[in-house]
């Protein structure tokens, strides 16, 4: 099993290398990336099953013992994140292959897209398996560097502008992360997560608090937590649809994952519940208000993305076993549903010619099937039963109620309000874009869309493009996957619970890395 762990990083990297070498051969590139991601998906699934039955897998890279060498650690949480990310990356890859074929590679020039996409995947997987704080940083760097390239694909003015915002902010978050690693190394003399976890406990509480805050701030920027979240809606929506989908689904969740690790493994003694609850509250509400003010559906979704990060932060703040279980389930749900919705909107934009609520119309008639895909995704994001968004929310609310703390009550209220407003924002899209006839759009007046702000980079009506079956098939597959979260909610919650229980007690993690005890 040990041999499988590094493969989740090395296979995509090998794929990237080969894809670079075959820069002129799109077909080979497509084959390579599909193969690589399929392989990682299978490996992740095997790892998840193995880890769930046999316990955490630890790999000492190069046979160097920790804390000198780098360790890779796959516990249930890592394995879940690996599998979900691999599935998303694969689904989006298939979508983008379809799109590339249809657009003759204008939007996503393959010679660059495939290697970069694979490096992004490798970085993401590395961040999930890293048992070494610096290596986690390297994983972040890989995925960020790749994301810079993917965001600016095609080099249009709007994308460069968005890219500048995104790159500068990401560099700042990386800088904070790196500085925090330096501080932590300075205070503990190691970068191995398990050893840090042991050594920080000997530090004075105020020093622990400083280190923890510094680290969390870096992650919070990545995860787009209020008040360091404003950059996201200005950055994500301008990229090509598949790229935005991956960013929205996965990149913020790496930050959430890192926050979970910080809270449950690294700094278990630091009391974070209250500050996390407060930022969760504002993340939820300010985010969803942002969504309500948008005419552009991709921007709208970016704001809901920020908003719903608040649910996860809330779950982390509650910190109980149930809270963590629900958070893990919610993370999985949110990855899948956000990615799916962005893909669906990608389809809508191609078919309807615009992603602005004020100009979109007649989608239900134009493509009932895509309408259904969007509707299911929207319901799911809005937290309507029986979809996974609802189940995750119920889990979070239950955890909050059990905490029985005034702040938790406020958060539950904010969570419910956010759910309602999300539904409002998305159903307004449905009313205007799907139900309204195309011929009504001109001079349409409704109090519902009076206060909406258009996308500053709106390119106006774009040419409608042929939509290949492959794109629709990929989106359909993702929707089905999101539905399976409901059907298999029982086993999934059980799994999330086992992951949460293992995470509750940080010594599980430490013991796995140092089976003979620390030092």
């Amino acid at each position, binding site marked *: 099993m040990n041999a499988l762990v*590094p493969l989740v*990083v*090395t296979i995509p990297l*090998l794929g*990237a*290398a080969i*894809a*670079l070498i075959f820069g002129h051969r799109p077909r080979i590139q497509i084959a390579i990336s599909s193969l690589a991601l399929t392989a990682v998906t299978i490996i992740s699934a095997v790892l998840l099953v193995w880890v769930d039955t046999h316990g955490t897998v630890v790999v*000492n*890279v*190069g*046979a160097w013992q920790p804390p000198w*060498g*780098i360790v890779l650690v796959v516990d249930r949480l890592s394995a879940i994140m690996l599998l979900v990310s691999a599935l998303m990356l694969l689904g989006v890859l298939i979508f983008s292959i379809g799109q590339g074929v249809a657009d003759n590679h204008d939007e996503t*020039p393959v010679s*660059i897209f495939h290697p*970069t996409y694979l490096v992004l995947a*490798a*970085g993401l997987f590395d961040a999930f398996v890293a048992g070494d704080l*610096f290596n986690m940083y*390297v994983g972040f*760097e890989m995925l960020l560097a790749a994301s*810079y390239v993917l965001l600016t*694909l*095609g*080099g249009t003015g709007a994308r460069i502008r968005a890219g500048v915002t995104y790159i500068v*902010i990401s560099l700042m978050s990386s800088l904070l992360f790196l500085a925090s690693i*330096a501080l932590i190394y*300075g205070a503990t*003399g190691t970068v191995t997560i398990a050893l840090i976890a042991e050594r920080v406990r*000997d530090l*004075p509480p*105020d*020093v622990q608090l*400083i280190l923890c*805050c510094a680290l969390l*701030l870096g992650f919070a920027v990545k995860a787009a937590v209020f008040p*360091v979240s404003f950059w996201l*809606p200005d950055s994500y929506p301008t990229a090509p649809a598949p790229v935005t989908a991956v960013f929205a689904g996965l990149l913020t969740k790496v930050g959430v994952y890192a926050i979970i690790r910080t809270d449950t493994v690294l700094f278990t003694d630091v009391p974070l519940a209250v500050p996390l609850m407060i930022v969760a509250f504002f993340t939820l509400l*300010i985010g969803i208000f942002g969504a309500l003010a948008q005419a552009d559906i991709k921007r709208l979704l970016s*704001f809901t993305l920020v908003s719903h990060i608040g649910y996860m932060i809330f779950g982390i703040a509650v910190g109980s076993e149930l809270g963590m*279980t629900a958070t893990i389930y919610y993370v999985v749900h949110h990855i899948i549903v956000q990615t799916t919705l962005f893909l669906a909107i990608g389809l809508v934009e191609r078919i309807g010619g615009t992603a602005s609520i004020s100009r979109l119309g007649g989608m239900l008639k134009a493509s009932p099937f895509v309408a259904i895909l969007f509707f299911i995704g929207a319901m799911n994001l809005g937290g309507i*039963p*029986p979809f996974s968004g*609802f189940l995750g929310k*119920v*889990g979070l*609310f*239950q955890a909050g*109620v059990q905490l029985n703390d005034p702040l938790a009550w406020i958060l*539950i209220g904010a969570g419910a309000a956010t*759910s*309602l407003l999300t539904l*409002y924002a998305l159903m307004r899209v449905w009313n205007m874009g*799907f*139900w309204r*006839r195309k011929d009504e759009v001109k001079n349409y007046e409704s109090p519902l869309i009076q*206060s909406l702000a258009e996308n500053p980079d709106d390119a106006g009506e774009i040419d409608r493009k042929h939509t290949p079956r492959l794109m629709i098939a990929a989106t359909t597959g993702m929707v089905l996957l999101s539905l399976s979260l409901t059907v298999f909610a*029982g086993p999934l*919650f059980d799994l999330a619970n086992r992951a949460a229980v293992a995470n509750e007690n940080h010594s599980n993690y430490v013991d796995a890395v140092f089976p003979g005890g620390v030092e």
Partner: protein
Amino acid sequence: MTLILALFAAVSVASPLLTRWLSTRVFYVIALLPAAVFGITLAQTPTIASGGVIEEKIEWIPQLGIALTSRIDALGWLLALVVTGVGALVLVYCARYFDADEPGLGRFAGLLLAFAGTMYGLVTSDDIIVMFMYWEITSILSYLLIGHYTGRKESRGAALQALLVTTFGGLVMLVGVVMISSFAGTTSIASIVSEAPQGAGPTVAILLILVGALSKSAIVPFHFWLPAAMAAPTPVSAYLHAAAMVKAGIYLVARLAPGYADIPGWQALLVGLGVWTMIVGAWRSLRQYDLKLVLAYGTVSQLGFLMVITGFGSRDAALAAAALLLAHALYKATLFLVVGIIDHQAGTRDWRKLSGLWRSTPSLFVITAIAVASMAGIPPLLGFVAKEAVFGAFVEAAIEGDFWGWVALVGTAVGSVLTVAYSARFLWGAFGNRKKIVPTELHTDGWGIQFAPAFLALATVVLGIAVPLLDPLLALYADTVPGEGHYHLALWHGLEPALFISAAVLVLGGLLFWRRRGVARLQEKVPPLVDASRGYWAATQGVDRLSAKITIFAQRGGLSQYLSTILVVFVLALGLTATLGRTWPSGIRWFDSPAQLVVAVVMGIAAIAAALAKQRMTAVLLAGVTGFGMVGLFALHGAPDLALTQALVETITVVVFVLVLRRLPVKIAQHNKPEQRTRRLIIGVLVGLVMGTIGLIALGARQAPSIAAELPRLAYEEGHGRNIVNVMLVDIRAWDTMGELSVLVVVATGIASLLFVSGRAKALPRLSGSRNQRRADNRRNVIDDPQTTEHPESVHRQSWLLGGLKVSSENRSVLLEVLVRLLFHPAIVVSVFLLFVGHNSPGGGFAGGLLAGLALVFRYLAGGRYELGEAAPIDPGKVLGVGVLLAVGTAIGSLFFGGEILQSAYLEADVPVLGHLSIGTSSIFDVGVYLVVIGLTLDILRSLGAEVDRQQEDTDLEAGTDDDFTPAEVRP
């Protein structure tokens, strides 16, 4: 029961397909399903009658305590019969109501059937969270069904309004549901009710749940969505908005009443709002001319009535509630279906345009008259029996001196008077003669459409007479409500107060109808008490405006604001924690040698100057100074490897900057106002201070020894190298290096992607012809480039570099060409040397690659892009690819030999010149590093150098001359 629900789901999904095949007949087919379930439920009657329940449980999400539990008791049985029976009839009605060419017919059929299934699930589910799930699904289906006429703006608006109002209540309810299940420790409704938790928490929880029930059942102040929802096709109004969905709230109250009717606030809320709703709804109903709206407001009123009796909380009231619920479902569904027929056949629902219908369609008139009579409470119909029971229960309570008993009695009596009045007005309005109007012509299409309402009307009559049979079944539910009670449903109870009240209500109601003109005048004078609909619009628009304001505020500043927010948060969070902390380092050592201080001061000055610089080039060079300061610090710390690498990196960085700056304006634009600059200055200084402080604190807090102490020994003994840095890079932490290599690759690719938008696969331009041919050309000074022919003097000069010929003369430097010609190859050799000795001495793949890269940089600087093409006639993508392939391949290789990933193996040998070498697999890894660095440099040169050259030349050619070229940005 789960099987039944699965069948509903499956058939619903299949309905659109079936519709293509069967057209409107599809409704007959799908009606079979609810009809069958009605039959099954009816067959369960003996079990229910004997006081049994039918249970089924399937585990679903044990972690959240959610299970698919169904439980049919007397109340569930009653509701299940109503939703399936009315559902089947409405579906049958639909087959005649819709034309075959109705748009979205298949969707409609599927949704309506799905709704029937969901309602069945709602009333039979015992798990409160699953029940809530059905609850919300009905809201969504209602949204989709109200919006059936998607082309009508008012339909869409009404649908959204209904959805938002009911979901608002739903979410409040969800909080209550989660709370109550948490307090009760179970999600089973039966247990939650039978072992009701006490205290403030559960009380709040139940009140929150009631908000959901009130919004679903259109009770004031949520009532306004229901009349608007009449934009739906009439079958939807009949089923969802009269018989089934709006009853969900009543059902829930009825469910909870046995356990919670005595909690504070329950009675006040339900009786108070219920009475108000009943009166307001009936009063509004009297004002309507649209037959459907008469019924809609009437329904609001009746729901209020139901809420009062259901929420009252005594045993007799509960019995009356069950009877009224059934009666209402029967007569109201009938009336809606009748209105649908009139609308369909006469083409209008405005009764001012109808005349003489009683004569033209007597059968419909009879059906309607029965339903209206039941609604008004005329014996011997079910409505009368129910109303008698209601008054009986309230009189009983009022006699006992219960305040809410009096409120309920008086309120419902007044409401009933109005009900009688609008009932009569409805019948008269729909079927009566109008003097000035020509008798309405109906285009009937058969009697089939009257089947459903006729059946329902018949049920009203039959059940009214057969009420003694019904009584024990309904009493089964009523008996679960605590308290004494002995009432039985019957047509005749003797001369009791309730009978007199009923009679008085009928008389007064008739009076109101008789004096309807006076009533109408009064209506105009009394302003509407609450205009909740306006409240809804104000709320949505308020939320929209608030959102816009908040968002504009939050997103106003763009990048610089986002960045300063992050930094301010950093300063506040860490500055606060640092200053509040009590751990301060003792014995701070400021520097090890004075030289460090000097370097630090220089770096500081350079950094500040860079921030103040007005020209880009100055800023870059000053930033370079800080970089070289780091070189100095590394060197002073005894890290020559780091110093060497850093120096090479800085050099390349400066070169890259220079290449980029060619295309940028010379000066840095000054957009910022002075106060912004001051603010940024303060933030910058604070960030630096805080970072420095926490650095001191963190380093001062160290207790355990650093792992670094062990590294020299490990590097030598295990890593076979004396150069710790290199061993770290290619062995101990090679996994990091591998990752960073991919970062380099991606950066190179990214830069290329931006400059070669069309794809970078294009090779660099090379001199034409074979190598020998080109040498000959060089000697003969043959020029084929139009640019260089403009500068004839260059023709006569021998070139040291092949590509040099393509460079215009004023850009050429013979000295540089000679130096590059002489040094290029030695530099490459040295770079390879660095690569291989790196394991023990300063050097390594990274430094070696940088050196080779620098050599290429100079070839390019001296000879231009053609020279670069000659020096490295390869696709950098391939170099990068091969480099990564080598590195990752080495990493994986060890797995095949049973080792861990990246585990090294060594081969030791004495090699001339290089000395004793210990070649490990890590060296192959280092070759990969070397190649990637070269590939990166090459790629940057190609894109930022060669491609920018080419673009610039294109621009120059377009501009006509290259002397006065100014980038677009700085032109006035």
